[in-house]
């Protein structure tokens, strides 16, 4: 099993969700996060004084999948989240050791 984590632009969330559903993966966790990469921040203005905003809002997705689904999933996320402009985000894939569905007690492959 793998855990796929993706940091994407917030306005791309719906597109990514649809793309993931289309390849038959149901279930993901979304978190609103802030950070910076190559895009850096931007300046804002308050009462005549400019100030730097270093951390930009992003959305973090977490999706647990079987090993053989990983490539299709990453491809779907990248395809849907890409704008071609700086700040599109990143996808990380981790090994996932163990999973349990709380309601039934099913484990690992049956739980995701």
């Amino acid at each position, binding site marked *: 099993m793998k855990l796929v984590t993706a940091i994407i632009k917030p306005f791309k969330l719906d597109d990514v969700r649809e793309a993931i559903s289309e390849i038959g993966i149901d279930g993901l966790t979304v978190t609103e996060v802030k950070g910076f990469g190559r895009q850096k921040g931007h300046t*804002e203005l308050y009462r*005549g004084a400019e100030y730097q905003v270093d951390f930009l809002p992003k959305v973090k997705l977490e999706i647990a999948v079987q090993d053989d689904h990983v490539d299709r999933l990453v491809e779907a996320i990248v395809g849907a989240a890409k704008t071609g402009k700086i700040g599109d985000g990143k996808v990380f894939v981790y090994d996932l050791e163990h999973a349990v569905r709380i309601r039934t007690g099913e484990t690992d492959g049956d739980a995701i």
Partner: protein
Amino acid sequence: MEITFELGYALDTFYFLMCGALVMWMAAGFTMLEAGLVRAKNTTEILTKNISLYAISCIMYMVCGYWVMYGGPDGLHAAVPFLDGILGDGVAEHGDTYAPSADFFFQVVFVATAMSIVSGAVAERMKLWAFLAFAVVLTGFIYPMEGSWTWGGQSVFGLYTLGDLGFSDFAGSGIVHMAGAAAALAGVLLLGARKGKYTVDGKVNAIPGANLPMATLGTFILWMGWFGFNGGSVLALASVESANAVAVVFLNTNAAAAGGLVAALVLARILFKKADLTMALNGALAGLVAITAEPSTPTALQATLFGALGGIVVVLSILALDKLKIDDPVGAISVHGVVGFLGLMLVPVTNDGALFSGQLIGALTIFVWVFVTSLIVWSIIKAVMGIRVSEEEEFAGVDISECGLEAYPDFTGGRV
């Protein structure tokens, strides 16, 4: 004839009371404006401060303020401390055209307005109880003294009488607004800037307000309340002449606010390349302050231009005060002080009864009196109990150190 008189008495009294209620609502406007322009960690304290100062103003003006301002042997209403006797009939005792207690109610909300001005300027770093102690002295003594020299008609320590010198301040650009700003300036100079506002090399750091919808709502409330502030200062409604005057005052008050907002919005766009909302809000208030000294004689176009001048001056003043490292989180000293002075100086342009020299002497009298006495009172409070919270408390926010409660506990990890 008797019925006509009684109807007029009832109408004037009713008008006075309704305008007083509108001015009371300005306290809500100041509260929302200030709560919007401070950081979230200082919200509970600024709310507590604003509603408490309103209550203290009401009590102190009853205890002695009204008596200091209008009492004494030559006083208009010969009021005495604790308002004994004010319940009497205005017609029989003074030949008034409205109830004396309505006059008190209308006057008391003005005191609260002057005090509200102070609270925004010293926000985010002053001790709550030091501020409230100052409120007792300002509303019970400092403001009523200068009020007695102006609206009260008394001579300034027996030296000169402002009314004889051609001084005129219709609804209080100087008497209320500049006076509040003078007290605020004295406090800010002793208090110092918020930590992190100015860097050692003179750069100004922005400390953005937490809630701009609230600041905008506050400005709308003040704009509305101002119709009572200026409109009520006509002091009568029950004749064709006074009804016309009231209508002109409403019209001009509204026009000046509009002029101030647009001028500040455009100037900020030219200077900073962006539409700076909080500068525009200050611009609307500056327009209102600028017209307050004389809203009855300008034409609507003149009122709009006077307001616009206020809107321009306030933006430049806010930038200048930041250069001088005088930290005023809400712009109160610029809006009420600098533009209050401007408002006084604009009176002779349209009102033949006022003189530039008289306006200048009046402005200096009010400023020097309020600034010096405030400086003394702030210094005493500083020596006795301190006026500024510790650096650590300021960092954590005065909500916790002064009130023990955060304004938005949902986001701070509390249970449920």
